[in-house]
């Protein structure tokens, strides 16, 4: 099936006007599949880390949100061990007016502002609530271990 005009335009723009700290490159054999890397926001436990994600645009896109998953291990209350992300705009609050670019920015923002009240990784959220400095330390540690090369 031919690639919708919208996907082509988005891809072109991602290449032409990249967002600082975010990279999204489509696979050559599947233009709906993107390799994404996000730099951890400054003044966050993830600073200095480069996190790899995979992004897939389903058939119904943009009626349905893209599917995104962290490939790099990350210690975050809204991201589980499999890399799945708990983010409203990726679920109920998705709108077809949102784009790859905006979603990736949202994820970057999520790294900067973890929300333990709407957890996906329950153990991480629990610890974040009970011992936030410890949790942040672990997050830093993980970033050092997994997200820096």
């Amino acid at each position, binding site marked *: 099936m031919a690639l919708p*005009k919208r996907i082509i335009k988005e891809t072109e723009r991602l290449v032409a006007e990249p967002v600082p700290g975010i990279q999204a490159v489509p696979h050559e054999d599947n233009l709906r599949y993107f390799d994404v890397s996000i730099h951890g926001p400054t003044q966050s436990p993830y600073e200095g880390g480069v996190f790899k994600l995979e992004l897939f645009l389903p058939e119904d896109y943009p009626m349905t949100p893209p599917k995104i998953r962290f490939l790099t291990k990350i210690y975050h209350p809204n991201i589980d061990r499999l890399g799945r992300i708990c983010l409203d705009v990726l679920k109920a609050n998705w709108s077809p007016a949102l784009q790859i670019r905006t979603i990736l920015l949202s994820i970057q923002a999520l790294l900067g502002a973890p929300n333990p009240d709407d957890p996906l990784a329950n153990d991480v959220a629990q610890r974040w609530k009970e011992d936030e400095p410890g949790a942040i330390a672990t997050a830093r540690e993980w970033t050092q271990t997994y997200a820096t090369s």
Partner: protein
Amino acid sequence: MEDNPHPPKRRRFFAQSSPSPPPEESDPVLLSTPQREIHSYAPIEEPSSDAPIFADPDEDVEPNAVSDGHIEEDEDAIDIQALGIRLDAVIFESFVGEKLPVDVLKQLDDVSGGDLQRAINMYLDGSWREVKESASKISRNQSPFTSLFGQNGKRKTPTDPGLGPSAPTPSSDEETAQRLDKMPAERYIGSFGAEGWATRSGRDLLKHGEEVFIERQQPQQTQKMVRRGKGKAVAVVPQPTSKRKDIVVRFSNSKGDEIGRLQHETAQFVSTLLDQKICVFKAVCVYAPDVLRTNETIYLQLNCYMLRQTFNPRAIRMVDSNRSTGLFEAKETEEEKALRLRQTSLVKLFNEIKLYPTSAGQDSKAKREGLLQVAEMAEEKEKEDAARGGSTPIKDEEEQQEGKELEQDQLDQLYKKAQTFDFNSPEAEPADTFAMDLRKYQKQALHWMLNKERDKKNEGQDESMHPLWEEYTWPVKDENDRELPIVENQEKFYVNPYSGELSLKFPVQEQNCLGGILADEMGLGKTIEMLSLVHSNRIEPEISADSGSKPLSLPRLPKNSDVVEPAPYTTLVVAPMSLLSQWASEAEAASKPGSLKTMIYYGADKSLDLRAQCSVANAHNAPNVIITSYGVVLSEFTQIANSANGSRGSSGGLFSVQFFRIILDEAHNIKNRQSKTAKACYELDAIHRWVLTGTPIVNRLEDLFSLVRFLRVEPWSNFAFWRTFITVPFESKDFLRALDVVQTVLEPLVMRRTKDMKQPDGTPLVFLPPKTIILEEIELSKAERAVYDFIYMYVKRSFAENMEAGSVMKSYTTIFAQILRLRQSCCHPTLVRKKEIVADEVEAEAAEADAKGLTDNMDLQALIDKFTSQENDKGEVNNYNAHVLQQIKEEAENECPICSNEPIEEMTVTACFHMACKKCLLSLIEYAKNKNEQARCFSCREPIHEKELYEVVKHEKENIPAAFQADASAEPEFSLRRIAAGKSSAKIDALITNLKRLRRENPGMKSVVFSQFTSFISLIEPALARERIQYVRFDGAMSQQQRSAVLGKFKTHVGGIVLLISLKAGGVGLNLTEAKRVFMMDPWWSFAVESQAIDRIHRMGQTEEVVVHRFIVKGSVEERMVHKIQERKKFIASSLGMMSAEEKRAQRIEDIKDLLS
């Protein structure tokens, strides 16, 4: 042999009347001759009339006209047909009725070669004396069987060196008679070996070299005289249903004792040849056992002699104009059957005696095989029919009547031959009153047409043999390799293997039709070619008559109202109503001012008396061209037919004059020969008759017949003839032969060129800009799909039930009606749904909207005003709204946030004033609906509803000249319109989308929208009106004036305009080259019909590329129609579809199955 009495009699007749030889029947003036003949020799023919094809119908009429000689025979033989041969002096004397001296008997015996029958006849007609005289000049062999050739002695050949078969003067009745006269009563044609079996046993019954007499036992004569209507007694061949035809042929030895019968295969054709008096057989025993036992085989040599009578052309015309009442009989008549038998027998005989044509149209051997095959098939069919009995006769008849449909490929083949157009054929320049330039091929057409019109019968061009005939050479040696006496100037004879006709005269291909069929493909300018002919071949009124004798030039009423007045200056054009004005305007455009007087004869305009108008006396004011419609012809015809006296003249209408020329445009209107319109057209009188049609054959060969009938092309204009040579062979699957014959009919009559023909230099005949066809798949909306699925399931179920009950063919029409509904539901659900419900829904929605303070059509300016005035109350939000609207107004080229299209297609605004493409918004709502969620605005996540979407409608003012657009008020006006209110079908939406895109990208381009359903067109109209798209409508319900007004508006309108047109009304004839875009709203069963419609636009005169959009609903019967049925029709076309009726039915069911799969 029983026919022996005949030839000598006839010969005598000729001898007596040779100063004034009997005229040929074809000469209409002398049609009364049969009456005369009856008194001279019909009595003898009468008993032999078990061969109806020979018998002139008139001869059968008067059984009372029996001469003395006949009565004698009658008494003796008891049966009128019993001309049995009894080789016995006693019998001879009892026949003759007097005792004869022995020497006379001896002489007679010599002369007749021992054939009693002949002896009797010769004695009776006195010819034996004559023979004796001439025979004595020829040395004769004493051998018993060579004495047979005593006949040859009679070939006294009057020398007439001026005449020869190779250079005959056609249509000379005298010559024919002379020729016939010269021919001996019997002439040797060949011999063959045959087997027979003994029916008795005995010793020395037959020995080698003994003469054997071949005779026919008379079938049950008593049943064979059948009374027919009009009191005609006609002898008929026994009904096939009653019993198998008796074909027994017995033979007897010289003593007259019956020895045996001929073998079945031989007897089959020999019997017919004997019965129909085509030839006589004289046989010699080749081998017979000394002691003969019953059933033993006897070998014979059969020498065959053609009878002179066979060559009498009078006897062959089996169908006469006075038979016209029976013309339309679908079934094979007895005459036709006899003819078929004759034809087959002749072919078989020629095969046996190894006589091959010296000259024939084509591979005669294959042809013969074909002929035999056809005959067999006919027989089989007959048997089948008989076996089937009375259960299905009606159906069968119907089918026969209908004629089989032609497959596309067969048509292609036909045309292929017909359109072998010689690009180097001569051209003719049109008269200088003709104002247009003709292309080369058009000049060639003009030359051809002029030739056809001027082609008088005896224009000494080289004569070609009639294509149905074959030329044979008489054998010069007999069976024993002895020289046969030569008949001077008669080396050859001619046989028509299709009819069984024989002739001594060179059969010339007659060409007395002073007109023809101009079948150029659409768009090649048939009208122009015809108009050039009107200009170039016309009779100029004599100037002297005008200036000199003034009284003559005054129009006056003819004295006798029953007489058809000549109208020598007038050409009548009969065309479909929709084309009348087009003809008139083209005639005007093609003529220098004042050179052609044109008159539309239609409606109120036809109060004139054409007799006075067009008469010779009114030469200078007579219209040169009268244009009328088929409807007018029909109504005047019925008027005359219903009037008390039925006289043509009284009405003063079309039938009261003989035109110089008649042109039937779109002549496939008369393709059904039984339709009243066709019959009415046949009755129109003219010297030159032309038909114009792009499709001389629409789907059956009979279509062509009707044209030929109108053109009065003899002999093909006779349906019986046509049926025998074309329909029957075609139905019995001998396609090649039938089509071959059709080609020979077509060839001299038809000129046909196609658009894709290439000139010798490789350039196409006509240059046309390219044409692109785009198949657009339409996705039905959910609601539409529901309607469609409902009907689909219903139709499918009903079809399945019918399949199970085996009543598919019976309820075929019902099923088709249901499929029609299904197809309509693809176009628009309301075409199927009840109108009231829809109206109710609309009302309910409107009420809801009113409550919210929004009307269906809000003026944008008003909206903006409304919101700016509320600014204070609602602050920023409304400001934004106003901004959005302002933005729209400024036509900011925004990108659709959903599909990223730029600009937004069919800008649509939500209730929260967010803008996107219409289809994106709709699919967003649809998507949420499918997930049972509330659709929310893509931007502000406000709940959105389909009913609260507003489309931005731009009102372009195309009619305003650019100069005035400078001032401020010229900016396009906008308004918002609720989408739900204008909710139409997916197809209409697609059309609108396309039209809007067209308006945006090619402003001012005109387009044509075709649909089969006028009710659908009625639904498209409001949609176009809403979008402020200019349109006009053209359909079959419109009057002539309305039609021309509509076409006029479409042509003269400045700027873009859409022509909505029904496929049926506008599929043919119209010239719509102003348009560059075509939209086919619904598919037809065969693409040819659609293609023809498209050619209204893509035809000569088109200057730009034509883009055609075909709308097909995805996953529907339409898709299957296009991909399966239309495709298959193409496929079948390429495999020479030879299908029987059953296969056809199966095919139809297959069609439906395909649709419902």
